[in-house]
């Protein structure tokens, strides 16, 4: 590894952690400012104004993203801790996640069918409610654009993370179970990360919903593959 490459990686990691810490500080003072908007927004402004190639930033960014794997596995800890409560509410958990996953696919079909005729956008947005690794795989089978599917997943997570809890509270949902399940089903990991900042219980429902919605959405697309292939 070249020394300059190493320097680039360290700079990318340091800049991201720095932006994150600053965003947490700002979020602490102004709770309505979402930490991911502040930190990613700041980094984007720096990258665009200083004309830094995205690859140069990503060299370090990728190292941080790699920790998402162990972090997702770590969701097992709050889920395990709340296992009794989850077992007690097994029926509403399954019904609501299946309901949300179906609505997630159907509503994209309806909205985009009305607004656009670009096939690549429609096919890549269908699996948007599940995290990027799953949506990439689904979009490949649908003949969508995998990179675009990943971007739509991140945008969905971002939207849910920033506005989700406010929307749910406006409609009178306040209990940890409803909020957690809704955020995990609609906005996968980014929504779950937002819930974890509220309470461990909300985070465990969200993490559970994220995992189950991933499994359920993958299964829901099986009949769509069969319908598309012939």
């Amino acid at each position: 590894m070249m020394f300059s490459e190493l320097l680039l990686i360290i700079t990318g990691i340091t800049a991201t952690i720095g932006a994150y810490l600053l965003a947490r500080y700002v979020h602490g003072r102004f709770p309505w400012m979402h930490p991911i908007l502040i930190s990613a927004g700041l980094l984007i402004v720096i990258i665009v104004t200083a004309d830094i190639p995205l690859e140069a930033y990503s060299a370090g960014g990728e190292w941080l993203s790699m920790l998402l794997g162990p972090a997702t596995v770590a969701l097992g800890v709050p889920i395990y801790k709340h296992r009794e409560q989850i077992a007690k509410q097994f029926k509403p958990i399954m019904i609501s996640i299946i309901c949300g996953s179906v609505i997630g696919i159907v509503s994209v079909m309806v909205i985009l069918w009305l607004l656009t005729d670009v096939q690549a956008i429609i096919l890549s947005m269908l699996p948007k409610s599940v995290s990027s690794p799953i949506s990439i795989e689904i979009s490949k089978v649908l003949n969508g654009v995998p990179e675009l599917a990943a971007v739509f997943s991140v945008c969905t997570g971002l939207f849910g993370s920033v506005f989700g809890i406010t929307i749910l509270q406006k409609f009178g949902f306040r209990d940890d179970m409803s909020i957690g399940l809704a955020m995990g089903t609609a906005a996968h990991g980014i929504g779950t990360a937002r819930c974890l900042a509220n309470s461990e219980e909300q985070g465990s429902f969200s993490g559970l919903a994220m995992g189950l919605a991933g499994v359920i959405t993958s299964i829901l697309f099986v009949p769509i593959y069969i319908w598309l292939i012939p």
Partner: protein
Amino acid sequence: MYGLLGFIILAAFHLVGVWLQHVGNIPLPGNVIGLLLFLFALYMRWVRLEWVEQAAQFLLKHMLLFFIPYVVGIIAFAPLLGEHWFSILAGIGGSTTAVLLATAWSARRWKSQPSIDAEQVPTSSPIEKRGERML
């Protein structure tokens, strides 16, 4: 004390999940397979909660940090997103709102009533309970 051990355990489950996804052609991402295996190991008590708790708490507390590079990566698609911004925004915003409300509504609709649990709590008197329910 168990911080590093916990991290190694979590990373190992992730690696096994990714490996299984490739070898077994499972239509689930490796991290979700790793999560399912990890939950199974916790249930079977092959992995003790106290070994992993510290590392898990640290990773979950800072989970948003690991998403930042992905969000920054969106700028590579700025031209396409700019051209179709309205349909993309309406699609993502409208559909995500629909999913949030549908999931939360059905969770509340089917939730087993907490009042049954409240009745099993011996400390609260029947009068208090009736008052709460009327509220």
